[in-house]
């Protein structure tokens, strides 16, 4: 799909830069899966293991798809920001912009049979696992078309058929669940792994270490991924953790520290981790990443960090800019073509929002569905086996 769009946009620019456009057009089509090697900019730091190679193989198709997916994720989060301010999204809304490389790089290294479970900053991970923009916006606005039928909200995105297990509001509680997913993989002998994502704030939860102990004992194929964006809501990591080297905190479990703003470093690390987990049990990955927004929409994000810091990271380490520079450096597309992709993404997001706004609110009877499986006589009941006594409109 990326190819056809680029083709059309390059034909438009044929008038302006015929040679260059034709050159890139030819280059793109003919070398779409030819390998390109890229060096990750930051070396891996290791704990009890050998680092994977810093040389990553990719190809133009993957580069462009990374760009497109990350641009979609970025645009989606910014649109969610505006929707929240317009009071169409209520409650909690935790945005992932800045951290897109983790979702995209991880997805590139694994299959849909592997499981991913994360906390409440899950919009982009859901998208990476195959969710659609319509499902995202409908769920955020509490409509029927949402992935959880409007009953979950921002923190409860799930997609069972592609191995995305959510979407959890309580900090750290998803890590034992993730180890349970890995247990099921081992039980079913299906050669798949479970990625349990958590943040630097959750890294201090006891249940994490409990689950890690059990996983190491039973050799479960689980990969604990700490998305370290350096702030647990308003508390900086140095104020919350005696040892902010989260990849070392597994003690007997090997760990790897990865530049989380570099999608290829993330991809390499996840591939390495999957191999390790299937062979020798759990491993911890620490993704050094950053979020531009505050913790959630009710947090301005500037009371505990300076605006200079935020803009500094945006200038130097932004994941999308990195991919853009790579694409331009390898002459896979022109600036204009990339801008066109972004415009197209923006249009897709706007269309999805418009369609989501059309989606109806859930029916009142939906209040009682899915409390228990198969209804058991009534859909839901309290102590007296009746539905709620109030008359529903």
């Amino acid at each position, binding site marked *: 799909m990326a190819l056809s769009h680029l083709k059309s946009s390059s034909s438009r620019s044929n008038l302006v830069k015929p040679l260059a456009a034709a050159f890139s057009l030819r280059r793109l089509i003919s070398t779409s899966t030819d390998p390109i090697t890229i060096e990750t900019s930051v070396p891996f730091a290791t704990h009890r293991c050998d680092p994977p190679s810093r040389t990553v193989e990719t190809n133009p198709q993957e580069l462009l798809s990374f760009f497109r997916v990350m641009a979609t994720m970025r645009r989606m989060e910014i649109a969610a920001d505006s929707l929240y301010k317009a009071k169409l999204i209520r409650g909690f809304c935790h945005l992932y912009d800045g951290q897109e490389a983790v979702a995209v790089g991880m997805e590139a290294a694994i299959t849909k049979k592997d499981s991913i479970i994360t906390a409440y900053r899950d919009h982009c991970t859901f998208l990476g696992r195959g969710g659609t923009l319509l499902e995202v916006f409908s769920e955020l606005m509490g409509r029927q078309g949402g992935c959880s039928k409007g009953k979950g909200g921002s923190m409860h995105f*799930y997609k069972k058929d592609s191995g995305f297990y959510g979407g959890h509001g309580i900090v750290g509680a998803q890590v034992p*669940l993730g180890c349970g997913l890995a247990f099921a993989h081992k039980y079913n002998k299906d050669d798949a792994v479970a990625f349990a994502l958590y943040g630097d704030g959750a890294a201090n939860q006891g249940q994490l270490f409990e689950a890690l102990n059990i996983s190491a004992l039973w050799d479960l194929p689980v990969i604990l991924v700490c998305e370290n964006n350096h702030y647990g809501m308003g508390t900086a990591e140095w104020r919350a953790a005696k040892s902010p080297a989260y990849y070392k905190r597994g003690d007997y479990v090997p760990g790897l520290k990865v530049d989380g703003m570099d999608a290829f470093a993330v991809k390499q690390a996840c591939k390495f981790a999957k191999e390790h987990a299937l062979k020798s049990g759990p491993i911890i990955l620490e993704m050094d990443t950053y979020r531009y927004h505050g913790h959630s929409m009710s947090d301005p994000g500037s009371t505990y960090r300076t605006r200079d810091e935020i803009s500094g990271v945006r200038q130097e380490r932004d994941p999308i800019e990195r991919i853009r520079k790579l694409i331009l450096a390898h002459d896979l597309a022109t600036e204009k073509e990339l801008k066109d992709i972004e415009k197209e993404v923006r249009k897709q997001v706007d269309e999805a929002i418009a369609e989501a706004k059309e989606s109806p609110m859930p029916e009142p009877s939906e209040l009682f569905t899915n409390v228990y499986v198969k209804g058991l006589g009534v859909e839901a009941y309290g102590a007296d086996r009746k539905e709620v006594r109030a008359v529903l409109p």
Partner: protein
Amino acid sequence: MATIFQGLRGGAAAALTNSIDSKKLLSRSTRRSLSERKVSFPVVRSDGSVNLNPGGSNARARRVDQLITNAVATKADSSAASSTSKPGHELLLFEALREGLEEEMDRDPHVCVMGEDVGHYGGSYKVTRGLADKYGDLRVLDTPIAENSFTGMGIGAAMTGLRPIIEGMNMGFLLLAFNQISNNCGMLHYTSGGQFTIPVVIRGPGGVGRQLGAEHSQRLESYFQSIPGIQMVACSTPYNAKGLMKAAIRSENPVILFEHVLLYNLKERIPDEEYICNLEEAEMVRPGEHVTILTYSRMRYHVMQAAKTLVNKGYDPEVIDIRSLKPFDLHMIGNSVKKTHRVLIVEECMRTGGIGASLTAAITENFHDYLDAPIVCLSSQDVPTPYAGTLEEWTVVQPAQIVTAVEQLCQ
């Protein structure tokens, strides 16, 4: 999906000492289909109109008639056994639990057990003895002492389709896993819009034992009862222990099975053939006319002991073991209230916020017009359970108190 049998027992009185032989088992052909239940679920309204499940009520009424001749609070006559049912086999309650567990593990390879010391040690109350040797380390899992995380792991595994049985060595330890049970176990089916089912069984012994101390004598049913999305059942005899265990494992919903520390060595004769007990039905222990006594778990035996005294004094109490703590079987309870017009609830929970409190509210709301007297609820005192034997006795409801309460109620 669950095939529902109702094995009713005649004369379950004095189950402590005697084996009960007469049971009326519903044949497989009268299995109630779920669609039937959806159309006419039993709803008892406060104005007295009752909408019953037609098949079920008639069968139940018939069984009640047949029960009365056998149901006296004295030794059950073993010769009155129904000659059509097989003799069955005798076992202790923990063995019945194990039998149910083993049958389900044989039947479905997705069933696994996890808990502290359930494997090599055989279970702290011997419920899982021998299972680790038979099924291996991956199906009978010894966990470290980390309730929060292994409960979470069980729930995570259930999200993919496994059916773990999570054992808390003592129910009180599951307080550490409250977050996982409440937020993940109870709510995931709802917040995922129906994508995930969590078919876990969380079980363990609770209740006041013999001088075990405050922290090991907790009654967690009162804490768990308002969690949406879970079902709670309490077993009290080897028969219903095995039946409820099997039904809980087969259920697609998360079920918490409350056992009692002091009931594990009860002996009873149970059928050889396979059976399960309905997770949402109460058990008629002793039909009567004068007062309805609702109870569950260990208090059932205190009530039956009091019933002996009451019968000698000329009262005819109807004793119902409610078994299903969430949801309540208001159908059977309602019918009983309509008959006797007096209710006594005897429970082991604390006075404040216990199962009795919810049950009082439910009965008052639904059957207020049928009551001749206020509902009396006998519960444990609102204190941490003391160690000293005499104090511990006073914490829990004793048969003498039950007799007094019935006498006062029936004045």
